[in-house]
């Protein structure tokens, strides 16, 4: 078994930091000096309106996009100038849940979840089978291994993709809109799964979402994207903020303190734009 022995202690350095990141896509300037950080072992939710750059931020962390300027450090390593081959080494420690799942539709659910193990470990097929079954049971999809992604509902697809994203026990999990298009039961199910995975494995989790109630429940910190920059703090900071853009965002969603069921730590919103 050649899987990396990642103890909880080694996860401690898995911080993600953006510093002065600028990015223009087409004619749109998405980020104008974005600076923010994502603490190790915590769930950070990225909020913002449509087109504010939430998904783009995740793609920058994964190295799928490169910024025009600025620095992005993952686990202390500057990734903006790495080659694709070098990025592969970083990405082995990152799991990503894409908005549409991005499961390979020519492969069964089992083969999709098994793919990272087959590619990056020397586990026997027997061990891989056991591990995949365990992960599928964990996400509530037992006995779906023989199905193809086209046979799955949106929620099942998302959960299968989550199983694939965490099957190698990555240090960082990036979740792009995990709740979009799901019914309330599936929203709650995926939310609980994400929280459980984070609490059990102490991995660094970055979640983008429009689903304010879930965000407030699960987030340790929140990064709010506005005008190409980031404002960050705890969920309570967000609720206490008098920044009219944030107030407007919360009011438009119908969210607010009532949306959060669990007590959250208080504090002031860090308008300097860096989650420490």
């Amino acid at each position: 078994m050649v899987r990396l022995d990642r103890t909880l202690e080694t996860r401690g350095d898995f911080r993600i930091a953006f510093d002065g990141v600028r990015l223009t896509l087409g004619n749109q300037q998405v980020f104008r000096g974005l600076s923010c950080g994502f603490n190790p072992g915590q769930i950070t939710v990225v909020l913002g309106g449509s087109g504010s750059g939430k998904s783009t931020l995740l793609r920058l962390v994964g190295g799928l996009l490169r910024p025009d300027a600025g620095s992005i450090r993952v686990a202390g390593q500057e990734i903006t100038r790495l080659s694709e081959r070098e990025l592969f080494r970083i990405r082995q420690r990152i799991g990503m849940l894409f908005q549409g799942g991005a499961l390979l539709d020519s492969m069964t659910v089992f083969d999709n979840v098994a793919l990272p193990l087959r590619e990056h470990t020397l586990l026997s097929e027997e061990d891989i089978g056991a591990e995949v079954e365990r992960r599928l049971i964990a996400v509530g999809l037992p006995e779906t291994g023989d199905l193809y992604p086209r046979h799955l509902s949106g929620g099942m697809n998302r959960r299968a993709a989550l199983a694939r994203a965490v099957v190698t026990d990555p240090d960082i999990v990036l979740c792009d809109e995990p709740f979009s298009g799901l019914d309330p039961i599936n929203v709650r199910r995926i939310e609980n799964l994400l929280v459980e995975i984070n609490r059990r494995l102490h991995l660094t989790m970055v979640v983008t979402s429009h689903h304010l109630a879930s965000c407030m429940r699960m987030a340790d910190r929140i990064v709010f994207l506005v005008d190409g920059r980031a404002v960050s703090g705890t969920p309570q900071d967000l609720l206490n903020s008098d920044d009219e853009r944030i107030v407007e965002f919360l009011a438009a969603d119908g969210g607010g303190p009532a949306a959060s069921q669990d007590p959250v730590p208080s504090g002031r919103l860090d308008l300097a734009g860096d989650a420490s």
Partner: protein
Amino acid sequence: MNQSTAIHALGHRSVDFVTNLGQIARFTLQIVRALLMPRYRVRRTIDAVFDSGVLSLAIICLSGITVGAVLGLQGFYNLSRFGAEGSLGAVVGISLVRELGPVLTALLFTGRAASAVAAEIASMVTTGQLDGLRMMSVDPIDFIVSPKALGMLLVLPLLNALFISFAFFGAYLVGVSYLGLDGGQFLTTLESSMTFENDIAVSLLKSFVFGVLVSIIATYRGYTSLPTAEGVSAATTGTVVVASTAILLTDYAITALWGV
């Protein structure tokens, strides 16, 4: 002002053309490297051969038999004007093996299998599946593109042989069963008119070259498509148009260069 705009447009097109050529060359090198370096995707390549082959099987067999029959009919009427209908086997054989077999097989293959490969890869771009692979540290060129390209390259000469065999059968049916030529004479002239180095090897060479062209064009078009529905459509039609043109131009070049 208009002249200046036209010159600018021409310049842009020229730069785009050269850039595209460079990108295709780089893409081809990436495929070659992925094929040569471990790990070898044998299972996925066999699947690609099966998919491309099965997709094209019916159209190749049907077209082969039809083209052979038409060739037999036309050949018989024209040769009989000179009293040379006994040479039908030779005429049909040479034209099919050297020219019609490789070219028509490649064109049919492009329309059926290569366009499907381009559409499949393009739809994977659209649905984020290739990005999903990248995020799992799996190179899409190694995992998806190379097996499909190699599969197409391997299957085209096989389909070429199948097309020619069915075309012979079609010509035989028309020439011998319908028009009353002697079957033995048909087969003897067919066999004696052909040599391995001048005919069979050329047919294989053309098939191989067309296979390289079609596989690179189809996978490149799919891989570099825009992540939209229009992108999938453009990749598919672009593959058919560019590959068909490339096949016909290359066929002329090979024939002119080798005199075959």
